[in-house]
């Protein structure tokens, strides 16, 4: 395990009586790409701003490279930020924007010139030195903002939804470029986004936030395959989630009663009568013409759609829940209006403990 470059210990933040970040503990490792992922308003920006020094913490402590930063002004911290709205200086051209940090540090002019040149080359903006931000496209502004931060060789780069304002195609392209840049420079990235797909694509680790709390911290694969809370399961990727109670335990095989019907999953540490959730991905759902032992999920197929090679449909279950179902094959076993019996391999589903709240 690499050393932690940023450490958050019991960090809290409240605005008035509004507790926005609660008891946050997070070790960010040197050189990693860590994403804070969560819906709008869950406290991602606030967390980032506390690390950068634009907000005071209400409680707890933040350390950068082992040193507490509470008493340091933003301009004394060894981190740089790429802001959500870029915040380029409108009265300066691209060159002066990128050179700003070095100019402030009174770096000799020749050195500034070479470093800005290199940086613009890195973000593929050579030749745009004299342009004002007004005369740049969204993607170009984005690159300037990144260059302006990176030129200072920060230990940690904080990025607040840096691709949020770009259109989908450009965003996909920039995701790859940013990831490549991060690998090449070996700088720690703390990346904020509400886009789970973006987080899954780019991150080494993801911290999924919900209402000011980190629900789960792990690699994209861990988060996707083994969501620890109902929220994570529903937020990451497409999922069918059922709330129920354990009816029988047989080793790790659990039989669970839900309003939609009986179903099976695998999990450890569950007791009969315990309330819990089951999450199952649409691509793992199976549908049969005959009832399947261990399951009692009859439903009617509707909204049957062929998407080239994939099949997508919703199945209306008896309590009115819609099960999302998708398959990458042409010969789907059912057609619109059919009654089918839904099931899955228990190990493909995830058993989730019910948490308070």
């Amino acid at each position, binding site marked *: 395990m690499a050393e932690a470059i940023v450490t958050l210990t019991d960090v809290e933040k409240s605005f008035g009586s509004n507790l926005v970040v609660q008891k946050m503990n997070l070790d960010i490792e040197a050189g990693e790409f860590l994403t804070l992922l969560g819906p709008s308003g869950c406290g991602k920006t606030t967390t980032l701003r506390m690390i950068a020094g634009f907000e005071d913490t209400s409680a707890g402590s933040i350390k950068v490279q082992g040193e507490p930063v509470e008493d340091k002004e*933003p301009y004394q911290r060894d981190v740089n930020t790429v802001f959500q*709205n870029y915040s380029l*200086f409108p009265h300066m051209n691209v060159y002066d924007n990128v050179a*700003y940090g070095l100019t402030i540090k009174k770096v000799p002019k020749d050195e500034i010139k070479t470093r800005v040149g290199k940086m613009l080359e890195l973000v593929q903006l050579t030749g745009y030195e*004299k342009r*004002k931000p007004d005369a740049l496209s969204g993607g170009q502004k984005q690159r300037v903002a990144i260059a302006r931060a990176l030129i200072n060789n920060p230990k940690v780069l904080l990025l607040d939804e840096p691709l949020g304002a770009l259109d989908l195609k450009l965003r996909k392209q920039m995701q790859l470029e940013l990831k490549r840049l991060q690998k090449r420079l070996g700088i720690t990235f703390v990346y904020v986004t509400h886009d789970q797909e973006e987080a899954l694509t780019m991150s080494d680790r993801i911290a999924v936030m919900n209402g000011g709390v980190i629900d789960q911290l792990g690699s994209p694969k861990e988060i996707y395959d083994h969501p620890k809370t109902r929220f994570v399961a529903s937020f990451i990727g497409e999922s069918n989630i059922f709330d129920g109670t354990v009816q029988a335990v047989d080793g790790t095989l659990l039989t669970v009663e839900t309003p939609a019907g009986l179903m099976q999953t695998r999990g450890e540490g569950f007791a009969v009568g315990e309330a819990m959730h089951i999450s199952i991905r649409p691509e793992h759902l199976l549908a049969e013409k005959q009832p399947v032992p261990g399951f009692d999920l009859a439903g009617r197929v509707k909204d049957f759609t062929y998407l080239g090679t994939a099949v997508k449909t919703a199945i209306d279950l008896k309590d009115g829940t819609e099960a999302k179902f998708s398959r990458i094959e042409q010969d789907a076993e059912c057609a619109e209006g059919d009654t089918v019996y839904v099931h899955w391999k228990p190990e493909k589903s995830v058993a989730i403990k019910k948490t308070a709240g």
Partner: protein
Amino acid sequence: MNHLTKVQRKRRALRVLGDVYAVLIYTVLYIPVAVMMIFSFNNQRYNYYWNGFTTQWYEKLFNNSAIIDSLWYSVIIAVLSTVISVVVGTLGALGLKRYEFRGKKLVNSMLYIPIIVPEIVLAVALLIIFMTFGFSLGMGSILIGHCTFCIPYAVVTIKGRISGDGNSLEEASMDLGANRMQTFFRVTLPSIMPGVMSAAFLAFTLSIDDVVMSNMLAGAKNSTLPVLILSMNKSGITPDVNALTTLMILAIVAAMLLSGGVKALLARRAKRLEAE
């Protein structure tokens, strides 16, 4: 012509009417100015009829130390009140736009009171205060008077030019290692410079042609140019006043041309740099 439809003909008529109207308005506005300029070269004391060309009024003007002195007096007061109201106005506008504090709404609406209240009321109020506290009248009192209306105008003008997206530029600057002072002079001030310039022009204009305050709060010794001219007018307008106002108009036109030229030059240079 014949192939024009009724609607087209109507539109054309309306356009011609509009042009005539515009020409008429400008003629009415500028005829007096033109007449005044012409009469400043009139070889005759009373401005009733043309009597031949002369530049004697200009000579007289430059030898009239009362006029020249009060011109300087006015300019100094205008420069000082411009500087004061731009500094105070910039800080005030930033404070009102960027920070939340109790009573902000009240402060904001109180800003308009000196603008709305008749100037004479403010002048009388100030006069009473100065008298009460034994503050001797003169340049200081006029300066304070001018600031009472220049500052609110400056705040309002600059406030309108400060972008609404909070402190993000300042935060970006501090994030990049600049302390508060560096941030103010390198980022905040340049980004609101257009507003600051407009405020400066406005304050200068308001101060230099103010009569009410300047009259009420002037001491016995000096008076500003507008006050002096007004008092001269009581005995009929003399051509040396025509000469003075002609010069002032020329100075203003020159200033406007200059600033327009500088702006065009800067724009062209920016374009050229961009093209490179």
